[in-house]
């Protein structure tokens, strides 16, 4: 539990390179390698998603619906077909659809078709929704999803930074005051992280919205939305408090527990005693000799917890009526909107991949063994 697993080891860059190579080339090389690896990983992940989704032929239905819609629109707009009867027009559309399906390769074996859809998914060409539309009226799945993404990113990046900085700060403080009452209290609270964020969200809604009335029950802004930008931002902030606290509360104690334990283990190392014997100040010892070797493990542990947070978002956003990706997924699953479901899953795979990629870069920057930056100083 505490020896956090490393999700991705910096294989390529950990090999010692000749000194002649410039730092920039190394950074670019490393980043490029990681990016290619991550793209391949996402590709495989998305492909698996498609295979799972299409076991019942659902993705095919999305594509067929898409074809029918485009053909119907084209026929409806064209002057040539104005004079046709409804019957004739339907026949004509059927013929065009069959032609188009053949052209799109829907009569091909599944293996070939799955690769076509994979390409569509990777380029975010996700098809059309039947019963959902974005607030701006578009029925393209990509627009529907991208419209919801900022709300989710706002919620989760806020919670993430709070978790990271508060967690590190408190963990350091506790490792300094090991065995104190606060230390034991927080360690005792660590098991509470077994419950996901939405679960605490329920309690916070009950307490702060229903009983005390301090914060709204849910939503992004109050209705109607305030006119001025400042009031709008304040309203969003007000609505954000409860979900952010719920995410924070569900992860912080376990995080502090793990990090504190790391700091304690590493502060027992001989070189730390040596540094102290040299007369270095506590702050310098902490920064250079304790934080620096523990940082990589902390970052990877954090990567795993963020991935957990992404999934928790589906229910959390539903509970708080937060108009983000998670709630979109929930709504789509309730009305069986296949294209949006598959599309959101693809986006989730992308989000996870990007998260892991960025943390990988951060990991490389702070891991003393990787030394991509080539900076010998103790900057953390």
């Amino acid at each position, binding site marked *: 539990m505490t020896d956090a697993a490393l999700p991705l080891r910096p294989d390529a860059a950990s090999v010692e390179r000749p000194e002649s190579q410039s730092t920039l080339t190394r950074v670019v090389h490393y980043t490029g390698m990681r990016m290619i690896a991550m793209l391949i990983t996402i590709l495989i992940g998305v492909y698996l998603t498609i295979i799972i989704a299409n*076991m019942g032929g659902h993705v095919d239905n999305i594509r067929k619906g898409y074809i029918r819609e485009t053909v119907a629109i084209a026929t409806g707009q064209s002057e040539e077909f104005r004079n046709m009867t409804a019957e004739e027009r339907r026949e004509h559309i059927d013929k065009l659809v069959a032609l188009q399906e053949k052209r799109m390769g829907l009569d091909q074996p599944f293996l070939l078709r799955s690769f076509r859809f994979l390409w569509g998914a990777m380029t975010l060409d996700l098809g059309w929704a039947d019963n959902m539309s974005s607030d701006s009226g578009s029925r393209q799945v990509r627009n529907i999803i991208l419209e919801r993404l900022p709300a989710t990113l706002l919620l989760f990046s806020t919670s993430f930074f709070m978790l990271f900085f508060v967690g590190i700060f408190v963990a350091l403080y506790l490792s300094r005051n090991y065995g104190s009452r606060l230390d034991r209290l927080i360690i005792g609270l660590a*098991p509470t992280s077994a419950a996901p964020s939405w679960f605490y969200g329920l309690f916070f809604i009950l307490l702060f919205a*229903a009983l005390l009335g301090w914060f709204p029950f849910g939503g992004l802004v109050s209705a109607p939305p305030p006119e001025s930008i400042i009031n709008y931002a304040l309203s969003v902030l007000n609505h954000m408090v409860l979900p952010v606290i719920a995410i924070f509360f569900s992860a912080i104690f376990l995080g502090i527990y793990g990090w504190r334990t790391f700091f304690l283990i590493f502060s027992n190392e001989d070189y730390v005693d040596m540094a102290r014997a040299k007369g270095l100040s506590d702050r310098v010892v902490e920064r250079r000799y304790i934080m620096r070797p523990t940082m990589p493990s902390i970052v990877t542990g954090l990567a795993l917890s963020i991935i957990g947070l992404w999934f928790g978002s589906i229910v959390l956003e539903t509970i708080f009526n937060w108009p983000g990706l998670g709630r979109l*997924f929930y709504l789509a699953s309730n009305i069986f909107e296949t294209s949006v479901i598959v599309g*959101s899953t693809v986006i989730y795979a992308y989000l996870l991949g990007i998260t892991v990629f960025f943390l990988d870069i951060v990991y490389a920057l702070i891991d003393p063994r990787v030394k991509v930056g080539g900076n010998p100083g103790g900057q953390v």
Partner: protein
Amino acid sequence: MTAVRRTLAALSQYPSAVAGLAIIAAMVLFSIYIVIAIPYSEAIDLWRGGEGVWLENPRTAQPKWVNLFPGVNLPETVILGPAGESDDASVQKERQVVSEEMTDVITTFTFDYTADEFPQEISLFLTSEHEQKRPLVSLTWLTPDGREIRIADVTVEGPVTVRFSQEEKLERRLDGVRAEIGLFADPASDEKDPRPLKGTYRLVAAGLVFEDDADVDARLVVYGKVYGLAGTDHLRRDLMLALMWGMPVALAFGLLAAVGTSVSTFIVAAIGVWFGGIVDAAIQRITEVNLILPVLPILIMVGLFYSRSIWVMLGVLIALSVFSSGIKTSRAIFLQIKESPYFEAARAYGAGNFRIIFLYLIPRLIPTLVPGFVVAIPSFVFVEATLAVLNLGDPLLPTWGKVLSDARVNDALYQGNYYWVLEPAALLLISGLGFSMVGFALDRVFNPRLRDL
């Protein structure tokens, strides 16, 4: 066995672990009891029974113990009749011959009302025995202060349910006030904020029958606002059933998922380390792909497209977790152990690869598996609850997650039905804490580096 005993002895050093073990033991015992007391099929029948089974329960009633709070005095449900089934003095039935062709069957219900709030609704269930001519029942309400209110006249054909709040004439007679309020209101109290009049109420159901051996039976239900130890939901179902049956389901799901994922992960890691080379590299790459697979969305897709059965979900969840991040941890430990000389000895006597993996490599490391496994159980219990909240719970079984989901869909928090959310949430939290407290202590017992800290 000595290893188990030693572990337990070490665990007893941690008060939190002792508490956690007590919770787990209590849950296991209770689960065994409930599965025997209410068998699987019966539980499903009761839960799916709909309104028919639970007809005489109030809707979204709070648990009875809320009346223990100071200042709370909510009415309990009063169920009276039919006469003869119980020799209760509160239901009296007599026959009066009116003429040659007509007989009056008069049933009088008497009950005391002492609550501070009005009942939820009032219903009278009528049944009759007749051949051709249908009996006519007229209902009269007698309040403690002696007022007499005519309710309705009903012709009884087969079983008839009279819902007082749906009698339009009665509502007009009560000046547009709902029946359950108008019939119980104290005339002296403020019209805008009526208070119930406490005392003895009576309902007289006078049935006029036109045949010699015809008869009318009636059953009065004054629905209260509290019910049982756990309250009821929007379909009048007793929440106790779901709360009790949720426990074995949660335990089974959490336990099976944790065993399935941790054991399979462990075996895969061991195989990778033992064979090394391409196998190991392939397992590592698969783990990296698996890390970015959106598990919950895929579970939801499976639930939507294929099956919502809790056991299918369990299988998919385990399949997606085989190549989880746990592999990296196990791998690191396996790599250390692989160099031990007894593997060479095993190879020297001609042991095959799988013999070595399953008989020598894996057993050595089972202790390191235990803490992670115990900690994983509650997270899987919560996965079930998460799926249920997303409307993807098992369609048949009553579970804690489904209670939470129903509560959420019916705006329980918004409408103040806090018990509906708090009861399953408390059970989830207690069981989660039980397992993770034991798991954390085990982690320290098996992880010597943590023991001094």
